């Protein structure tokens, strides 16, 4: 491209300036400041980016200083198959890993458990032993890459296996960066993968928070997730309110585990869904940051500014994708991803166009990643922090989202807190009602879904889908049985007993779980200890 002789001279000197502050320009060469704000400075309710209450973003320079992490959720089949997908995504420019586990792993069941029938490796990768985890990250330096793991009920065991996988590479726990989802409140509210009940689950989470704050200071022990709440049918306002109420629950959980608020609050992270209503989603992220900053400073008296920050991962809305005319999903994902970026996310997963049919093919996952790269590198939207800040519309919508969410959060406080609210089924009922209302609105054509209730066409474009070979289940069953046969039975039994003792005595479980993983105890056996000591949780049913 030829450069105009009158292009701003800042281009010529940019090499002397850091990436964060160097002058950027539009395609026509107009200069772009890192931030735009009213004459006379920022309003107190907004702050500047990086300033309380962080309405405009958590970092001063936002994406000029640090682009969001492009983190594609991936996992299927055997650890070796997922390892190959991880390597392919990293080779294509992905900047962080995100692991999807299969249902048996999420529910604390080994591949040969009768309840795992037909599900091994189907919806994610099957992990039953520390050795499986070593294979999953084979050849990927865990001291170099940050890893997100979407696992909750069995998260304590998976974290122990992850520590062991790092150890096998010579990496210490203190060097590990990443996030484990570990948000059980939203499991009871929305995603419904559990091992034991609400209160024992929170005790296990408290142990993990205490352990990571000491041994893994760079690791996020919890990702407080609105995503599943939204996907289960919540409105954006409900997603915001229930997620932040869960966050308050985890702060209380950390305090109950004997931690100082500033010792763990900076490591709490969040995860929101980004659905179709473009401006509402942007306003939701802005309101979330402002509410959280005030909750942490005013309610919990956190002193450390990092404790006030709501740092979040976002994912485009799987539930918004359609099986009809599936190529249209690329456009939906692009618009949702753009909203996440304009809302100031720190990390993003973009869904693949084929997800209403199956787990994504590599080609579909690549298109989704490329969508983020197009937003980052072609559109120019990342050049200015909070580019929509100060829009009368966006600020009004942000204020309204905040007010509505605070009202629901106050109601939860009146019920005695989120744990009581969940035990009484309050968020669950609200979400069920919203899901049904939304479906009825679609059927009355009050919500348009292109290709489903408008612009339908008889002939459908067929797309290729990923098939998981049926021998994955057999392979994983054989592998876990061989692992059990090969280990020292006495050491394994002793280690399981030590975990049982810690469950009963209240001693921190994590060191015991790491030892148990080291001597070959399986995920199903360790979660089996939880089931036997704490009791198994069952779906209360109802609809």
């Amino acid at each position, binding site marked *: 491209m030829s450069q105009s002789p009158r292009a701003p001279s800042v281009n010529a000197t940019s090499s002397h300036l850091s990436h964060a502050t160097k002058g950027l320009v539009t395609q026509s060469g107009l200069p772009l400041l890192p931030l735009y704000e009213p004459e006379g400075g920022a309003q107190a309710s907004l702050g500047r980016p990086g300033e309380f209450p962080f309405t405009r973003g958590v970092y001063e320079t936002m994406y000029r200083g640090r682009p969001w992490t492009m983190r594609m959720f991936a996992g299927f089949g055997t650890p070796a198959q997922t390892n190959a997908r991880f390597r392919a995504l990293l080779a294509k420019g992905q900047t962080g890993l995100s692991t999807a586990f299969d*249902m*048996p792993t*999420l*529910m604390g*069941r080994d591949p040969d458990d*009768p*309840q*795992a*029938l*037909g*599900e091994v490796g*189907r*919806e994610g990768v099957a992990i039953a032993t520390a050795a499986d985890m070593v294979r999953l990250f084979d050849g990927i330096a865990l001291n170099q890459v940050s890893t997100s793991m979407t696992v909750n009920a069995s998260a304590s065991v998976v974290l122990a296996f992850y520590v062991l996988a790092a150890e096998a590479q010579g990496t210490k726990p203190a060097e590990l960066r990443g996030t484990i989802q570990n948000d059980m409140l939203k*499991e009871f509210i929305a*995603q*419904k*993968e559990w091992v034991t009940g609400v209160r024992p689950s929170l005790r296990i989470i408290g142990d993990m928070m205490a352990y990571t704050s000491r041994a893994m200071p760079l690791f996020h022990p919890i990702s407080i997730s609105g995503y599943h709440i939204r*996907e*289960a*049918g919540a409105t954006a306002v409900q997603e915001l309110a229930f997620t932040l109420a869960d966050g308050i629950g985890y702060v209380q959980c950390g305090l109950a585990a004997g931690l100082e608020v500033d010792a763990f609050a900076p490591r709490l992270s969040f995860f929101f869904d980004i659905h179709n209503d473009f401006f509402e989603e942007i306003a939701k992220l802005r309101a979330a940051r402002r509410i959280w900053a005030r909750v942490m400073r005013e309610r919990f008296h956190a002193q450390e500014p990092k404790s006030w920050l709501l740092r979040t991962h976002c994912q485009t809305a799987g*539930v918004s*994708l*359609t*099986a*009809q005319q599936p190529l249209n999903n690329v456009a939906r994902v692009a618009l949702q991803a753009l909203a996440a970026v304009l809302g100031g996310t720190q990390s993003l997963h973009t869904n693949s166009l084929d*997800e*209403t*049919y*199956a*787990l994504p093919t590599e080609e579909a996952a690549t298109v989704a990643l490329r969508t983020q790269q197009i937003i980052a590198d072609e559109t120019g939207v990342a050049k200015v922090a909070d580019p929509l800040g100060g829009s009368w519309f966006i600020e009004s919508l942000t204020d309204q989202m905040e007010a509505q969410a605070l009202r629901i959060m106050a109601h939860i406080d009146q019920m005695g807190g989120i744990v009581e609210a969940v035990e009484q089924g309050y968020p669950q009922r609200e979400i*069920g009602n919203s*899901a*049904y209302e939304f*479906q*009825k609105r*679609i*059927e009355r054509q009050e919500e348009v*879904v292109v*290709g*489903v*209730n408008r612009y339908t066409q008889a002939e459908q474009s*067929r797309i290729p*889908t990923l*098939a*998981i070979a049926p021998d994955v289940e057999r392979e994983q069953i054989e592998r876990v049985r061989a692992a059990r046969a090969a280990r020292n039975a006495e050491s394994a039994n002793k280690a399981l007993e030590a975990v049982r003792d810690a469950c009963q005595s209240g001693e921190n479980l994590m060191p015991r779980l790491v030892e148990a993983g080291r001597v070959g105890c399986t995920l199903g056996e360790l979660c089996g200890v939880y089931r036997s000591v704490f009791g198994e949780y*069952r*779906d*209360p*049913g*109802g*609809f």
Partner: protein
Amino acid sequence: MAEGKIRILVAKPGLDGHDRGAKVVARGLRDAGFEVIYTGLHQTPEMIARAALDEDVDAVGISIMSGAHLTLMPRIVELLKAQGQAEVAVFGGGVIPEDDHPALFKAGIKQVFTPGASIADIVTWVRQNVRPQV
């Protein structure tokens, strides 16, 4: 409706916890005038067949998002047949690729609804394909 009430079991097999679809469909079928029983989550095929017998249903609607449909759905049909409920109409929905539909039909599943199916479509199908027992 003049006819006797159709009884439908909405079932959630396997470890998959995605129950939005199952619950929305269950409510929609109830509001359309059918009697609906929901199993709750994390049911084995045996538990579902048992519930179908205990509740003496005319149809079983299976919701499955975990990719285990080729294993779990035919198993439920087999168990129903084995306990003398061959006439119970089994249908399903969820994240189920079209390439898998023929195998499911062959195994005795009468209809598969994919994402985007409306409650109205499902209600119409039930009215046309399920008869209450006399």
